[in-house]
Each structure stands twice: as structure tokens, then as C-alpha cells.
């Protein structure tokens, strides 16, 4: 059972490093989906890409700041 839980943690760890960041990515995907359903255009793809890029910048900068404060 413990081995199974460890294996499951490893598999989840492939996709999730920070639960908050993952939640934000999922919310961005949901927003992109809603926009795509409403517009059926490439605009939704552009917005999705911009938001995903912005979260990358925000979360990497936040982690860097956190690590710097801990050091």
C-alpha cells in the first residue's frame, strides 16, 4: 500500500510541482475553453497563450524570491 502511494506520488509529481500553480493553470485552461466555446476563433488561443506565459513569469519570479529570502 505504501509503495502504491509512493508510486502515485511520483506519477502526480510528473505534472504537479506546486499545487497553487497547477490550480492557476487549470483555471486558465477553463477560461480558455469558455472563451473558445464563445468565440470559436484564434483569439481564445492567443489569450490562453498570454495567460500561460504570464503565469510562468509570475510563478518562477515568486519561487526565486522565496528561495532568496530563505537563503
Amino acid at each position, binding site marked *: 500500500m505504501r509503495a502504491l502511494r509512493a*508510486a502515485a506520488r511520483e*506519477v502526480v509529481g510528473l505534472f*504537479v510541482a506546486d499545487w497553487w*500553480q*497547477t490550480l492557476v493553470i487549470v483555471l486558465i485552461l477553463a477560461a480558455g475553453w469558455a472563451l473558445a466555446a464563445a468565440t470559436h476563433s484564434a483569439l481564445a488561443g492567443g489569450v*490562453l497563450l498570454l495567460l500561460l506565459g504570464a503565469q510562468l513569469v509570475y510563478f*518562477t*519570479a515568486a519561487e*526565486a524570491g522565496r528561495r532568496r529570502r530563505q537563503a
Partner: protein
Amino acid sequence: MVTNALVFGAAFLGSGVESVEALTIVLAVGLTRGWRSPLAGAAAAALILIVLVAAFGQVLVAVVPDWLLKLAIGSLILLFGLRWLHKAVLRSAGVIAEHDEGEAFEETVAGLAGATDWIGFLISFKGVLLEGLEVAFIVFGVGSSAHNLPVAAAGGIVAVVVVTAIGAALRKPLTRVPENLMKYVVGVLLSSLGTFWAAEGMGVIWPLDFLAILGIAAFYVLASQVAVTLIRGGARRTAPA
């Protein structure tokens, strides 16, 4: 004749793109964790795919909607790729070490003990299985819509063989590329492919179709470089004078 060429070309290109995705994953895992386990994972996935395709064939294509497959697989690949890109940005900015000693230790221990690297096996298995399923979807989709499954299957098989041969040829030169650069490129590639497929699953029609992946990749490179610049700037401001 022209129809046959179109069916072959569509299946070849579509399967080629999917095979490149699978190859990217296997190469990334092989170059960072050693080759034995990822190759075993890829072989196991290929075997399961052959059994699945033989057993279910067109039923698979008919039951699972294409948009759902693209959305689900695209989102997973995106999460996986963004995680790599996130780490690559932190490494490039000097926040975390370029080389992961813990990982190197694990690899050495695994190599000495002759044990199976289950993470390497699983990542490779998952990648090849999912991308292989997409190849099967493309081949069945194109083949059944054109009522010419043998030609579509030939296109898919040739694409897989060509991409595998290119991968085998690139394996040695790629080992000379710095590890961090490799992980950065793979992170950008997976994030771009994941974004492309997830958005297509949502109903987005990208301009220039699959060529849009190049634009998406360029955007991720730009975003990651902005992040690296911001982090380095922040480090300079907080550094003691």
C-alpha cells in the same frame, strides 16, 4: 492516385508530428536518466498499442471524441512541459543548481544495482502510449474518412519508422548538448505542443494549423527569457552592496 497521395501525406505528417512528440519524451528521459528503462517503457507501450489497435481498431476512434483526446492529452503534456520550463528558467537565472546531484546519485545507484528506473520507464511508457494512440487516431481517422485505411496505415508506419531512425541518429550528437539547454528546449517543445493540442480540443482554430506550434514555441522562449531577466534583476537589487 492524387487522393492516395493526399491520404498518405496527411497520415504521414500527422503521425510524424505525434511520433516527434513521443521521440522528444523518450530522448529527454533517456538523455537525463539513462537509456535502458525509457527504451523498455517505449517498447512496452508499443506492444500495448499493437494489441489495442488490433483488438479495438476503429471502435476506439468512434467512441472517444477527437476533441476530448486532444484536450486531455494536450493539458497533461502542457502541465508536464511547463514544469520542465519552470525549472529550466530557475536554472538559467542561477536560482537552482545547473546539475541535480540527487538525481545523479540516484542514477549512479540505479546503474550499479542494475535496478529498473521506474520513473524513466513510466514517463517513456506514458508518452509513447498517448502519442501512439494519437497516431492510431490519425491513421484511423484519415483512413476511414477517405475509405482507404491501408494507404493511411502505410503513411503512419513510414512516419514512425522515419522519426525513430532520425531519433537513433541524433542520440549521440544530442548527448554533447548541455543538459540544462536540453531540458529548456524540451520544456519549450512540450509546453508548445500541449498548448496547441489543448486549445484545439477546446475548439480553437489556430492560424496556419500545426505551423502555429512554431509561433507558440517562440512565445514561450520570450516569456521564459522575460522571467530570467526579471529574476536576475531582482537578485541584483537585493544583493548586498
